[in-house]
């Protein structure tokens, strides 16, 4: 380990930069690097950075519970108690992959629906994709009874991976489509899950690369412009994809295209996507006959209310 003094401002653009910092300066590992990164760039002491993540994870856990307390229903009717129905029906339904798989679905639904109903959530990285991290990562933490300290460490790593996406592309559906929201959420969640078991930058990077590559090209076409359908269900796709990608990376599979290049590909695809598929509701599911009918219904309610 080097004894060179850590610079006041840490700048990263790629996983190579992260490796360079880890080699050159005396960081105590990947988590410590990202805590220092946040502390130095935000001018906040390290213990406050840590405490803030502690309170963030607490709210993330609460959002699962709150999303399950009652049937979540939105004025548009697009969210209509899905999580509640799912939990009521699963005991009497064939269980395809067991209770934990169903827990991933119900936890993801709970948080995504809570968000649609103006509940309190942690945008991770965005509100539209807020179900993925709690749904996949926190469910795995519960299954393996992971200590809170380890959970927090993993969230810092996920945040760092997300920061690289944010720096090189974007996390916004209106800029780069749903791949930037649910795709990024899935990638950072995959990296968080891997780091619960192995803090290896190679494996973390591979998990994120595979997860993001799987969702490249995903468009943002919300019906009636609402963060409801297909957003909530796409969070489930993000959760399941994150777990599969993490499992593959932990088993030693690698992405032929490195993470940094997958992020650049996402940006390029996002730039090439037509505006109609970037959160404008002028294409895709939003302009199907049923999508348009729902939009007319929602807008009529709108003009009565405002």
């Amino acid at each position: 380990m080097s004894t060179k003094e850590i610079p006041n401002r840490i700048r990263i653009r790629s996983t190579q930069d992260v490796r360079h910092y880890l080699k050159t300066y005396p960081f105590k590992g990947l988590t410590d690097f990202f805590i220092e990164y946040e502390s130095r760039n935000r001018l906040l002491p390290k213990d406050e950075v840590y405490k803030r993540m502690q309170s963030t994870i607490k709210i993330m856990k609460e959002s699962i519970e709150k999303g399950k307390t009652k049937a979540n229903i939105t004025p548009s009717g697009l969210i209509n108690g899905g999580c509640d129905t799912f939990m009521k029906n699963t005991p009497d339904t064939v269980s395809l992959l067991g209770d934990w798989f169903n827990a991933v679905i119900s936890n993801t639904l709970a948080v995504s629906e809570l968000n649609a109903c103006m509940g309190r959530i942690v945008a991770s990285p965005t509100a539209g994709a807020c179900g993925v991290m709690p749904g996949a990562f926190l469910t795995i933490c519960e299954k393996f009874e992971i200590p809170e300290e380890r959970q927090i460490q993993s969230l810092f790593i996920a945040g760092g991976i997300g920061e690289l996406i944010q720096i090189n592309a974007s996390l916004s559906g209106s800029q780069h489509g749903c791949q930037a929201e649910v795709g990024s959420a899935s990638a950072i969640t995959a990296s968080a899950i891997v780091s619960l078991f192995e803090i290896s930058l190679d494996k973390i990077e591979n998990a994120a690369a595979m997860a993001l590559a799987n969702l490249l090209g995903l468009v943002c076409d919300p019906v009636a412009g609402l963060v409801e359908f297909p957003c909530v269900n796409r969070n489930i796709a993000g959760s399941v994809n994150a777990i599969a990608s993490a499992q593959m990376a932990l088993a030693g599979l690698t992405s032929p295209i490195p993470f940094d290049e997958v992020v650049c590909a996402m940006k390029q695809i996002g730039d090439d996507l037509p505006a109609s598929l970037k959160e404008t509701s002028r294409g895709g599911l939003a302009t199907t006959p049923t999508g348009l009918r729902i939009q007319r219904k929602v807008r009529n309610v709108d003009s009565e209310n405002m």
Partner: protein
Amino acid sequence: MAIFDIIGPVMIGPSSSHTAGANRIGYMAALCYGKPFHSVEIKLYNSFASTGFGHGTDQAIVAGLLGFKMDDERIPYAFEIAKERSLAYNFRKSYKRDHHPNEVRIVFHRGSAHSFLIRGVSIGAGKAKITQVQEDNVSFGGDHAVLLLNYKDITGMIGFIGGILGKHQVNVAYMQTSRNALKGTAMAMLKLDEECPNDAIVELKNHSDMHRVISIRKLNNEY
């Protein structure tokens, strides 16, 4: 942007731009205005106007004006609370291409003669910028403490302002000035590393050619 913008912010859903960002505009606008008010006119532009209702943009802005932040669970009840606190509000919509997709114009009223205009835009990920205060074009989010000064365009004003801030140990990170005409009205927007102390604000206000002093605290490390 940094890690707590990725794992965060903690916010009331459903949309970081249309709910959290809208709330931030209302919150910053009320800080900017800095006085009690009884009535506000709110104009929503473009995307805020077309999909605002489904995203609670309207409730989020009123909540911000009431001093509730983006993680406050009272946001969905903002209209009821505004009523309890006798805050009157009305919404209008405007679709104009020369305006930002997520823009809000807020006019504060206190009594019949007095009105005060603030404009803001939501720029994504729960972040927002104030772009206009009365006639002055500005640009600030919550990353720094901000000082907005409006004064007569005469020689020595910048030196006067700098002198007072220096005396009170306030470091200026950025500064921008403009004026509407030679010897007309000038404005300065200063971004500061720490909030301007009260004594300094009083001294600035005491200058006979100073028309208006607005001081806003840093919001960066709050939601």
